[in-house]
């Protein structure tokens, strides 16, 4: 089994409950196994606008996915207009950082070598154990649910 085949097997096992969650949450999921990408279309309840969350899952789960927001054509990487404004449930710091990065241990972009928001976390391979006490999500369904939870409390876009 190649590394890619292992990743596909892991992702597809986790996608079963993720699809059930998506039905509950009103989200749409599209899995592209050849590209190791997951496309999730989420709705921002306060505006009824759609947000297009791309998960790049190469080497999952040795390292966490790369999660970022795109435009409707799944392009527009780093475009702040695709990223939600800050927001989170009362008393909970938002995972949507003003730099346009989902700042959570389950996003590879938060680590050194990517956005470098968290050089203090060390290697992304430690993602399941870093930053105890903060947001935890170590399956695809839990990550999607966490991102949707925070999206529920946002209004509009970052840019």
């Amino acid at each position, binding site marked *: 089994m190649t590394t890619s085949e292992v990743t596909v097997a892991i992702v597809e096992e986790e996608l079963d409950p993720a699809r059930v969650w998506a039905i509950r949450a009103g989200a749409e999921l599209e899995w592209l196994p050849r590209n190791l990408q997951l496309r999730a279309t989420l709705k921002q309840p306060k505006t009824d606008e759609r947000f297009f969350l791309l998960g790049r899952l190469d080497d999952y789960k040795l390292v966490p996915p790369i999660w970022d927001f795109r435009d409707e054509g799944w392009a527009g990487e780093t475009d702040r207009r695709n990223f939600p404004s800050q927001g989170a449930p009362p008393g*909970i710091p938002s995972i949507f950082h003003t730099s346009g990065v989902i700042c959570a241990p389950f996003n590879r972009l938060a680590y050194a070598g990517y956005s470098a928001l968290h050089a203090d976390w060390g290697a992304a391979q430690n993602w399941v154990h870093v930053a105890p006490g903060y947001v935890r999500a170590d399956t695809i369904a839990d990550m999607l649910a966490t991102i949707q*939870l925070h999206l529920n409390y946002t209004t509009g876009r970052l840019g």
Partner: protein
Amino acid sequence: MKGITRGLSAQSTITGTPMSAPEREKEITVVVHAPRHKEAKSFRWPPSTTVGEAAKEAASAFGYAPNGNPTFMTSDGDVLDRSKTLAEAGVKSGDKLELVDSGGGVLVALLGSGE
């Protein structure tokens, strides 16, 4: 956990410290969904149980690691305060709750600001 009757599913119930009949009658029965599981589970708790205690128990039943910060989201999308009791949080028998993690964004939390 003293005085708490735990239901891991509608079919299999784990009972903690024996409770009086009136206490059992007051118990709240809820259905909990967790993102990582396809099937929901039913739980029964006394209304005096805190949201945090109940969510920890539910998280454990769903196989979550103990280092999380679980709480519940109601069907209206409200995230419940972990320090409140189920009664104070307005949880009623028959409610459907979603298990969520109440941990925040790390950089924001480390900086201790809204940035």
